[in-house]
Structure formats: structure tokens, C-alpha cells
């Protein structure tokens, strides 16, 4: 199976083949790696890279990965090559980023913008309170606030749509 990864600005090609029970041959831009991997707890893998032992916590949501190894966090995206090709063809690669969702359950304390307002990337647009802390959420893109899905005072779940900027 072939995947495309984006690590920082760089794009890499990744191939995965099974090579025995629990063993995999993984290529990154042509370079081959042999690993023995098994999932030992919900998101935690025991990985033997050669004979070096790693505990790897793979947290992924859609194609966005955050991987913890010995206290270091590696963030990157990874997706099926076919899917990547489809997304490229459609030119829709960045639409998803304009939707702001709540990173945690909490309460909407304040809306800092109104529908139709122009916003800049990194501008604070909404304040969500969780665990006695107020957290100002920022928009990742520059554009216009297309729609606001929540009201002040509303309780939201993790992942709830907050507002859409286009």
C-alpha cells in the first residue's frame, strides 16, 4: 500500500508491506526499514526497529497524526496515495482547514466575530471555557466568516463545529 506524508513542508512517499506475522517492510522515499510492530494498548504500539525497542503512541484523526515517542511529539499528515490524488484533482485541499472545531468539550463564553466579518489567519474568533480556563481559539485562514454554528453560553462537545471561514 502506498501513502503520501507531509512532514513540515516536505512531502514523502511511503510504502508498507507485510513481511511475516507482525513484521513490516516500510519504505520512506525509497529507503527500506524493517520493523516488528504490535498494538499493545489502545493507541500504543510496541515497535522493534531492528532490535531497538520503542513505545509509540499514535494518535490520529483523519489523516493528521500526532505521535509520541519518549516525550517528543511528531506531527505530520499521512494519507492514502489514491485519496491524495483525488484531493489534488478536486483542488479542495484547504477547505477543511477553514472549519473551526472545538478541540475539547466546554462552554462557549464569547464570540469575538460576527457572520460576514473579515478575519485574518491567527486572529482570535471565539472563547471557549473548559476546566476553569478560558481559551481563545484562532482561525487558521484569512477570509470571511461564512457561518457561526454556536451561541454564547452553549455547551459544546469535543470536535463540535464552531464557525466556518472561507
Amino acid at each position, binding site marked *: 500500500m502506498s501513502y503520501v506524508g507531509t512532514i513540515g513542508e516536505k512531502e514523502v512517499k511511503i510504502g508498507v508491506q507485510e513481511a511475516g506475522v507482525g513484521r513490516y517492510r516500510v519504505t520512506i522515499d525509497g529507503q527500506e526499514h524493517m520493523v516488528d510492530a504490535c498494538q499493545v494498548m489502545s493507541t500504543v504500539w510496541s515497535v522493534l526497529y531492528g532490535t531497538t525497542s520503542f513505545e509509540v503512541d499514535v494518535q490520529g484523526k483523519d489523516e493528521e497524526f500526532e505521535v509520541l515517542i519518549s516525550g517528543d511529539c511528531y506531527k505530520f499528515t*499521512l494519507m492514502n496515495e489514491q485519496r491524495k490524488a483525488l484531493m489534488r484533482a478536486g483542488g479542495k485541499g484547504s477547505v477543511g482547514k477553514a472549519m473551526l472545531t472545538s478541540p475539547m468539550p466546554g462552554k462557549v463564553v464569547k464570540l469575538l466575530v460576527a457572520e460576514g466579518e473579515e478575519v485574518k489567519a491567527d486572529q482570535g474568533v471565539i472563547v471557549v471555557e473548559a476546566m476553569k480556563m478560558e481559551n481563545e481559539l484562532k482561525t487558521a485562514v484569512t477570509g470571511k466568516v461564512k457561518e457561526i454554528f454556536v451561541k454564547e453560553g452553549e455547551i459544546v462537545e469535543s470536535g463540535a463545529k464552531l464557525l466556518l471561514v472561507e
Partner: protein
Amino acid sequence: MFKKILIANRGEIAIRVVRACREMGIRSVAVFSEADRRALHVRYSDEAHFIGPSPASESYLVIDKIIDVARKSDAEAIHPGYGFLAENPRFADRCEKEKIKLIGPSAYAMRTMGSKTLARKTVQAAGVPVVPGTVEPIASEEEVLRVAREIGFPVMLKATAGGGGKGLRLVREEEELRSSLRMAKSEAKSAFSDDSVYVEKYIENPRHVEIQILGDGHGNYVHLFERECSIQRRHQKVIEESPSVIVTPAMRAAMGKVAIEAARAVKYEGAGTCEFLVDRNRNFFFLEMNTRLQVEHPVTERVTGVDIVKEQILVAAGEKLSIRQDNVSQAGHAIECRIYAEDPDRNFFPCPGLITSLRTPGGPGVRDDSGVYEGFEIPIYYDPIISKLVAWGKDRTEAIARMKRALTEYVVTGVKTTIPFHIRVMNNRHFIEGNFDTDFIDKVFFKEEQERELKHGDVAVITAAIQLFLGERKRAMAQKSVEGEGQVSMWKYSTRPGIRKLG
């Protein structure tokens, strides 16, 4: 001794008190809100009473409800933990009126130490060094200049009515004084409608060192030495240790002595903490007294062997302290890391949610005070603390090595935690050298972290790719056949040696 104690708190600190009660043969009574029916403190306690909706203001903070449970359950005493009602003198008054013993100091001691100016005056009168300066507002520019010269620059101008960082002005040299004073006054005027200011010595690059004290109702006091609490993020302690690398034996004795004097000044009963700022020349100045059990009390317990919560209970029951100053000592070194459900790689964003798997560290010298379990959902309503991890070693080097080892054993999935942050601090050169002040994390550590190179990117990408690969294959197979996938009945390791040697 009490037969039954109500614990007016939740989470790890409620569990800490339940543990002490159980070991003393005292029945424990828990209270819980809607969000907490499944919480660990409910499971561990001997009794549990429902007290209302999830927001603390409708449950854990409602004095009437707590008193009501105490009456119904025949609890003779209430342990408030920290936070919630722990430093509320009105709660202390109410307990006294109801003839229920509050495990903590008197309302008088709480009120005195709860007021910044009153506390300062009281301890100063008892001979405790405070940050030099005035407390009363100063009328004229000339008077400000005179005081500033007397205590020496740099000085801090502070609005008497101040708070939240407003009306503060740092003055490094005499030339800056007049213009800074005008600005501070005008800022204070517009913020608080009161332009009176006072002057304090500005302590540069201070360290935060505190002394744990215990007092009983028989006039006996002991101090349990110091805790170093300078590792703070946005003025909140995150890592504490005992002893402090900067405290000398003479300084320790002196700090202990004045802490006891501060406690004696308010006839302090129970466990309390005097916080001090320490300047570069190892001068120490009283900052405030916390009239309750501290989050970081376990580091002191580990180096002294004294169970602080049990002493609190003993003393509240009218007994004498079980220890004297001359039979307590510090043995080895202990460090505590506060583990929160926050994402250290997203600016410490709170991260409540379901704990999908949990592996706690063990082995020699490790203590874990946790408030959660696998399958527990951390509620959004309260402080997101998961656990306090304490490592002990025969010296600081061993304690740090052990803490690092324990942190890498600690696995919490489902929510993000500050464990990775703590691992990075334990690896930081300045931390290891003991070279830090209260600004270290915010001003030095994060900058250094950004420049650090990560070593195992390949392994991260490889594992994620394998997970994607297996996920896709599983879904593909699930379409073909409904049963049997995903379960490996007896794992078999293939023994083809040729494959192992590659990579």
C-alpha cells in the same frame, strides 16, 4: 479520635485523605456531583453522598450541602483538601457554629493570612522578614524617593488597590522614578479610581521556596524543611522538590524558625505553608502563608517520612503532634511532577475526556497520587489534574533519573497530558544543574525546546503508516467476512531468522 470524617473535595486530594482515614481506621464520607458518580474518590471511600449538579458552584462549593451531609452521616470532622472551601473563613465559621471540627486552622488564622496587608503586618511584627517597602500608601514624590533610596533600587511601585498586574511599575534607577510614579498613579486612577501607591523592593530572578509547618493546639510547632517551587508555568507551580539546591543548612534553620514564628503569630493549628521569595544572595522574604494542605505536600512526606495528612487529623482531634523538631530530618531527595490533562504541544490547552488506556509507573522510589482510572472520563467542570507523580532518590541526580524513568513508563491515552512536558524538563541542562528561577519555564525553557532536534521521526512515520495500513486492511476484510478479524487467539511469533536481521 474521630470515627468518621467527611471529605469536602474530589479527585486525587480526596483520595489522599481517604487513604489516610483508611490507614487510621476512620470511616470516610465522600461527596459527589452529577459528573462524579464514577469518580475514584466515590469508589474508594466508605460512604458517598450525592450533592448536586456538576458545576462546583452548585455542589462542592455549597456550604449548606456539605454541612447537611456531615449532619446526616454523623461525621465529626470535615477535611477540605485544597481549593474549593479550603481557605474560606465563612466555611470555618459555619463549621464552628455547627460544632463540626474543620480540619485546618481557625477562621481567625485564615482571615489574617488571607489578607495580603494584614498578613504582612502580622508576620513582620513576629520578626519574619518581608519584602522591604511600605504597605501604607505614600503621599508625596519625595517620600517615595526617600523610601526607594532607603531600600535600594530596583523597586516596584504597586497600586494599593491593585490586582491582576495593573498599576505595577518596575523602576530600575533613580532617574526613572518620577515619570514612573506619575504613570503608575494615572494607571491606578483609571483602573481602580484610587491613585494611591506603595513601594516595594523588586526581587530580581527570585526563586520560590516554601516551608511546610505543622502546629497543634498545645503550642507545639515543627517545620518539615523546605520545598523548591520555582518551576512554574504562568505563575503556576508544575514541578516541586525537596530539598532546594540553593538552601544552605543555616538558611534552612533560619527559614524554618521564622515560618514557625509566623504560624505562632496566628496560633496556627494543622498543616500550613509559608512561601518565600529568595534573591540571588540567598536573602529570603515572606510572600504569603497558605492555610491548608498543599498540592505538593508529598515531596515533604517522602523525604521526612511524616504523613502530613495523618498529622492534620491527629491535631484536629486534639492530640499532640507525633513528632518533635529534633526527630525529623530530610533523607534523600524527592521531586513531584503535576500531571494535567492538557496538551503541552498546543500551548497547554485543557484536554478533558475519556481515558482509553492507562499504565502507571512503579518500581523503587516512585509514588503516584492519581485521581483517575482506565475507562474514567475526566469531567470538564474541574481542575484537569490527573495525578501527582513523585520520585525519590538518595540524591537529586538519582531523583531526576528516576523521575525521567517513571515518566517514560507512564502511559495515558485518550487525553493529552503534560507527561511529555515533564520528560523534556527532566532532560533540560539548566534544570539538571539546578540553575533556574520562577521565569525559567516561560522565558528560557520553551525557547531552548524549539531549537532541539527530534531523533525518531522515522519510527513515528513508520508506525503511523503501519496503523493506517492495518486499519485499511481490516476494513477491507470486514467487508468480505463479518466475523473473526481483529482477534488473535494466541499470538505466535514467527521464527524465520532471515527477516529479523534486515532493517
